[in-house]
């Protein structure tokens, strides 16, 4: 593609992926898109056009008069109550958003679900899912969703699921850049059709609590410096995302702020086994073990490393302040 245009619509979500997108840096969002050759056809937070002008624009895309390269949908698709879609009518039109999205998706070269709500249903589908919320092409882990498992955009790809709650701004902009360069092929996406640009890594990678993990020196309360896997519900060793190597807002991540990773890029993250902040265990052993780790080996290594835990890590792990800095080793000059 030489230049591409982008239409962004919001439905059953919180607008947080847009707010996060505005955090793009070096360069800022507008410059990043300009540099990538992407023109904003319409975005609810950024564009001037409102009301009737927007309705006319949407109609013209549906009529095939305005070609559409990127259709980005933020928020889940609300099918209720009773299949009417009335839980979200697009303002000014009286027409359910699910109808607008279905029609626009027929015309788009690429359709992107921005955030876990649009991808899989996400937070909006929690508990009894009273709004009958679904993702564009997945309902939780199951293929289907609003557009159906056979849907492909005219560019040949199914819905691209830029999941996350919220999405990192770079996850969105880099996925768009990849597609503008016509470099997005089926094998660039994982089994949930998430871009492998950021899901080929685990949140565990680059976690600054790794030394505590190695020795199973565990945090017991919010704020403790230790590893949060054993007690605090952390899913960083299973969560596919590069949060701790890419970092957020200039250098943060959930785990760096003392909170467990809740695996927000995954379908059905919104309904954890018991609580987000407690590790489910059987006979004292965490139920969810690190990805690709044989259970027996994990248990054996864990008990060995626990026995070898240095005092420094054992004490620091259960404190919110560093008690013992690492010992300084001097060379033996006499």
């Amino acid at each position: 593609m030489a230049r591409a245009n982008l239409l962004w619509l919001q439905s059953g979500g919180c607008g947080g992926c847009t707010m996060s997108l505005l955090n793009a840096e070096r360069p800022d969002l507008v410059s990043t898109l300009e540099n990538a050759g992407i023109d904003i056809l319409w975005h609810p937070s950024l564009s001037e056009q409102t009301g009737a002008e927007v309705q006319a624009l949407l109609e013209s895309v549906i009529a095939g008069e305005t070609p559409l390269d990127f259709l980005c949908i933020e928020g889940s698709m609300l099918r209720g109550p009773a299949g009417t879609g009335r839980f979200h009518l697009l303002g000014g039109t009286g027409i359910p958003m699910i109808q607008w999205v279905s029609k626009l998706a027929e015309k788009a070269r690429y359709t992107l679900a921005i955030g876990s709500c649009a991808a899989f249903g996400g937070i909006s589908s929690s508990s009894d899912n009273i709004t009958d919320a679904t993702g564009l092409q997945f309902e939780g882990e199951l293929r289907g969703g609003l557009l159906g498992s056979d849907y492909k955009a005219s560019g040949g790809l199914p819905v691209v699921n830029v999941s996350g709650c919220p999405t990192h701004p770079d996850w969105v902009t880099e996925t768009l850049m990849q597609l503008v360069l016509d470099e997005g092929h089926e094998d660039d996406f994982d089994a949930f059709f998430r871009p492998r640009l950021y899901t080929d890594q685990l949140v565990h990678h680059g976690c600054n609590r790794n030394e505590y993990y190695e020795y199973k020196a565990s945090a017991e309360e919010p704020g403790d410096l230790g590893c949060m896997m054993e007690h605090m519900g952390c899913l960083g060793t299973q969560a596919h995302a590069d949060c701790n190597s890419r970092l957020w807002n200039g250098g943060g991540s959930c785990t760096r702020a003392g909170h467990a990773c809740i695996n927000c890029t995954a379908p059905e993250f919104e309904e954890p086994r018991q609580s987000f902040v407690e590790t489910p265990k059987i006979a004292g052993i965490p139920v969810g073990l690190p990805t690709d780790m044989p259970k027996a080996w994990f248990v054996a290594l864990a008990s060995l490393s626990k026995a070898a835990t240095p005092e420094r890590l054992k004490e620091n792990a259960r404190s919110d302040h560093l008690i013992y800095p690492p010992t300084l080793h001097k060379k033996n000059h006499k």
Partner: protein
Amino acid sequence: MSDNTRRLQVGPFNRVEGDLDIRLDIATDTSDASGKGNGKGTGTVNSARVNSTLFRGFEQMLVGKPAMDALVYTPRICGICSVAQSVACANALANAGGVQPTANGIRSQNLLLANESLTDLLTHFYLFFMPDMARPVYQQQSWYEPVAERFQAIKGNATKQVLPARAQFLHLMGLMAGHWPHSMAIQPGGSSKAVTRQERLRVISILAEFRRFLETTLFGADLDAINELDSVSALTNWAAQDSWQSSDLRTFLHLSDQLTFSQLGRATDKLMSMGNYPQPDLAGSSLSLQVSRGLWLPTAGLQPLNTDAIKEDVSHSWVEDGSGAEHPAQGHTEVSLASSEKPHAYSWCKAPRLNGEVVETGALARAVVSQRPLMTELMQQQGATVHTRMLARLLELAWMLPQMQQWAKDLQVDQPYCNNTALAKEGEGAAMMEAARGSLGHWIRLKNGRISHYQIVAPTTWNFSPRDEQGQPGPLEQALEGAPVMAAEKDPIAVQHIVRSFDPCMVCTVH
């Protein structure tokens, strides 16, 4: 409909957070030859109905969840006020579960909340409100060219200045809460992020840098000088000291004057603030509120706020009637296909009322209830208008940033950030505070360690509420009455200004 009225359905509204639809009945001026007989002439808005078009159902979602899991769900009510929702939830849990946050924890919560609120105030001005000044409808105005060059959506040169400043200001979130939005560090006992000695210095540096941006770009003056403007004449004199293009505040004052924003969008003039930013003294032994709690009435002035007098009316909402208007501690939010077809209902939003009265909330209310002299004088002169709402927001940036700098200095890095006492398994509690857009309340009950009741009343729920049982329109509905409409306008520009002067957050509104 007679020849001299017309009806408009306006939407989708953009540059507001979330989805909004407004139905306007417009009385057209029959003396206007261009519009005579065809219902398309100039006119004024007779009545307005404001429809919040999106329902998600957080209040039901939360029932049955483990108490502490509320801290994962509630920030996700809203991606723009996510920390405010977090702080309200943490404080409601603390209140219900009998936990007292540490002094450092309170300072952290204040810093995070102010970081988000000030970001919102800034984003609203530059990205959501000012781009309307660059719309073609103003092309003939003498001031148009430089204003369009600066504020035009996406292309204006302000955007490329503001986005980096905004992103760098939010580095505070990276350091103190992991990321924004949907930061999960905020706890009933304070914060799970103990800010280290090094990180505290970075926070102080981030605040100094943002202050520099505000002083050079937005205000064109030292923040102390802006905070010293204590009367309308002081503001006028200050503005006259330099050209209207010399800073973005001066530009706003000039345009507001040219477009008479002081006469646009007046509602009830009853202002509510639930108060904000409890401040521990350095010993952590006593607390005072930096932003006051209270109610301001046009003749009676400042009054105490009785939050027991809050009731949510559902007569015009697509919500099941239950037992009528209820206090949020008892309230319900049940929806169904039948409730979505309720006669007379036209919005998913409920109608919160204080003692049965329609009140407005937001930055203007905070300034007036806190007795800031300039905004109080303007309020007495012109009431709540597009001008006073916008100016209060800009001045809050100058008011709060120095406070943030003080809180950052007060962080005591060797003291605890979180009181990790477990929440009581049974209890009832509430938190009432101020988000960027106004008063936010969470009401909770815990049973056996799980949530058995959760109700939320957000700022825009107040401001964009539909009619109540008495037929009283909500604040925006009243503010739109009398708005001028030009011939053949489909999305009247005056309506755009009035709606955006409230800085609505629709995802919070219904949740």
